[in-house]
């Protein structure tokens, strides 16, 4: 062991440690490779070729697009996989290790360095998940605008990543957290938004308020139409921003008291 402090900035050091941590998470790696292949493979094999209409809400108008059940299920399945993986990795990154990094903040780590390192890694992971999901979907479904589909999956990943992170910071029990992210992603993306499984969902206002609605609209518009759905872009960005703000608030609420000791006057201490 080199008995000296690192010369690289602490935020970069945390980013590097987070990358090692992700590679050492064998369960996570297994899920990263298995979940998309198993889910999309099962859908591809079992879903029928009957036709169903999907409602796409553009600004000021609603389009009905006719698609095969298989294509609809594949795109929603891929969105569910992307949302679940994003939420799971955020949960893993911000649940058990949170107490450790809280101690690092106590020892003098600046919360901004912690956030930069952890969010840097999470952003990379979300980008990889969105890219892989788009690539895998593209192999099974002809996509009109893969880059828009990628953006939709990435925004969905950000929203569900933030939700997974919030669950991670407020819940100590891994099993509770894991089940929460799995059920959330499954209920919202794979069931309520998908008209193959919940036909009435398309016409319910409540379903349109759920976090996966706008990203899924963006994905479908990009995958099957020539138009860009500005409403879905703004809706997704608003949900992503709101989720990130809530995530940051949940982190700050657990760090601020610990941080106060370190910001006290060196001679006077904390009173």
């Amino acid at each position: 062991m080199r008995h000296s402090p690192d010369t690289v900035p602490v935020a970069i050091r945390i980013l590097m440690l987070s990358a090692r941590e992700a590679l050492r998470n064998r369960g996570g790696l297994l899920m990263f490779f298995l979940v998309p292949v198993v889910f999309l493979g099962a859908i591809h094999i079992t879903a029928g070729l009957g036709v169903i209409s999907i409602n796409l809400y553009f600004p000021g108008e609603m389009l009905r697009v006719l698609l095969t059940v298989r294509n609809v299920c594949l795109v929603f399945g891929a969105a569910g996989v992307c949302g679940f993986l994003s939420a799971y990795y955020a949960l893993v990154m911000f649940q058990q290790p949170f107490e450790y990094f809280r101690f690092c903040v106590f020892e003098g780590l600046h919360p901004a360095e912690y956030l930069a390192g952890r969010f840097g890694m999470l952003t990379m992971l979300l980008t990889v998940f969105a890219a892989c999901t788009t690539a895998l979907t593209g192999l099974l479904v002809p996509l009109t605008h893969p880059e828009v589909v990628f953006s939709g999956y990435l925004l969905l990943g950000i929203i569900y990543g933030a939700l997974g992170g919030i669950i991670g910071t407020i819940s100590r029990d891994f099993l509770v957290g894991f089940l929460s992210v799995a059920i959330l992603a499954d209920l919202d993306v794979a069931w309520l938004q998908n008209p193959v499984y919940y036909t009435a969902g398309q016409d319910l206002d409540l379903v349109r308020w759920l976090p996966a609605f706008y990203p899924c609209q963006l994905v479908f518009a990009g995958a099957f139409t020539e138009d860009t759905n500005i409403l879905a872009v703004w809706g997704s960005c608003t949900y992503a921003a709101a989720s990130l703000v809530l995530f940051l608030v949940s982190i700050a609420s657990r760090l601020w008291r610990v941080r106060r000791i370190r910001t006290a006057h060196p001679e006077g201490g904390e009173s």
Partner: protein
Amino acid sequence: MLLCSCDRLVAGYPSREVLRGCSLEVREGETVGVSGENGSGKSTLVRCLLGFHRPRGGTIFIHPSVGYCPQERYLHTRLTVEEHLRLTLTIQARNRTPDIGFFQALVERLRLSSSLTARIGHLSSGTYQKVKLATALLHMPMLTVLDEPTDGFDWTTYLAFWDIMGELKARGHAALIISHLLYDRQRFDRIYELKGGVCETLS
């Protein structure tokens, strides 16, 4: 110089009040013990002093140069011992230049050299405890707060622990040691017993 004190501290949880007007102080060069039965509020007291738990009343003073070895298992299970110690050393190096000699000696005396590449999740409970202790001590804080620090130690490590604490004490550093069983009472300058939510001085 006063390094840590609390006065009429009141704290607890929604279901019950644990501390009901607890007062104590730790000065430069002192080794102070806090004992008490299980559930008497020792760990709550420490968490209040260090800002991890919000008290309902009373005043707290604590020097910012403080190291903490908690009772809980908080280390990151997917990182190695070396990664932990290096990150802590790097964070601390910004506040004060680290004493590399002390750091090396600490790793040797706690016999951590052979475990540096091991992941935290694979450590025995004794070695895990050593890593927690090393993390708290490696930057030589003015005040070290240790909650059940010798749990899981073998006899040699137990003696090494007291040697290290003795050296720090000789340099003017203070320690607040919390344990439900305090052996070797002659090593302490003062012992408080936490009973009924208040601290009573034993010696």
